[in-house]
């Protein structure tokens, strides 16, 4: 049922793959058009992205700000390194918590797969420790969400 895979590779990589029922051009645009990004790149339920800056050109800036509407929030900043419409995006990003985390280098590929698209996102962290911390931070949000739910139940 699940169309997504998430796995670690070596000490510093995280690989995510996902299939979409739309051609690479559409999936690429959904990753680079701020109006579209704000509709889906939101994480756990209840979070929104009020600020979405995405200059889709080499050297262009990225800034996403998320909030849970209850005073919780964080943001990421980044820069585009390469864009090959509609096949490949290379960018770096870092989370601000509020201190910036080490750069996460991300290559995203969109390949035609029948009438759809196979997306492969390859993240490269500077070292194993950073990758562990990054996974923990990502997990953190899921964990917090589940603790909040639990509090609601108690």
């Amino acid at each position, binding site marked *: 049922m*699940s*169309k*997504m895979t*998430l796995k670690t590779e070596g*000490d510093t990589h995280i690989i*995510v793959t*996902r299939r*979409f*029922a*739309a051609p690479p051009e*559409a*999936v690429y*645009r*959904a990753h680079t058009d701020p109006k*579209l990004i704000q*509709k*889906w*790149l*939101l*994480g*756990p*339920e209840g979070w929104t992205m009020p600020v979405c800056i995405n200059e889709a050109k080499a050297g262009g800036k990225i800034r996403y700000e998320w909030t849970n509407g209850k005073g919780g929030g964080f943001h990421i900043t980044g820069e585009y390194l390469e864009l090959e419409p509609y096949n490949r995006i290379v960018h770096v990003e870092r989370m601000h918590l509020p201190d910036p985390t080490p750069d996460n280098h991300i290559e995203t590929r969109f390949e035609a797969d029948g009438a759809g698209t196979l997306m492969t996102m390859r993240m490269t962290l500077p070292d*194993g*420790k950073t*990758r*562990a*911390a990054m*996974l*923990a931070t*990502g*997990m*953190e*949000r*899921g*964990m917090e*969400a*589940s*603790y909040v739910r639990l509090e609601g139940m108690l």
Partner: protein
Amino acid sequence: MYDLDDAFSALADPTRRAILARLATGEATVNELAEPFEMTQPAISQHLKVLEDAGLIVRRVEGTKRPRRLAKAGIEAIDQWLAMLRKALEANYDRLDEVLAGMGKHKKGKKR
């Protein structure tokens, strides 16, 4: 003896969750664990004791060092975390599916 309540309260702290994530990459000494957290060694040792009492990590004796590694319950906790991260990503991509379906319906012309 593995106690679910102990494990749960041990995991309720972000530093302890980060320590477990660090140990997922392999065994580490107290010094190595203290390094990324800007915490004193006694503070880290306190966190390690909580994790140990909860059965999430175990220690080994090597000369004067006491390297820690994940216990089976700790590995299961990490697996659970990964499952939650996976869930957050999946929620994103399920929303993206809807966005893509909408794009196909509302747009016939092409933009270059």
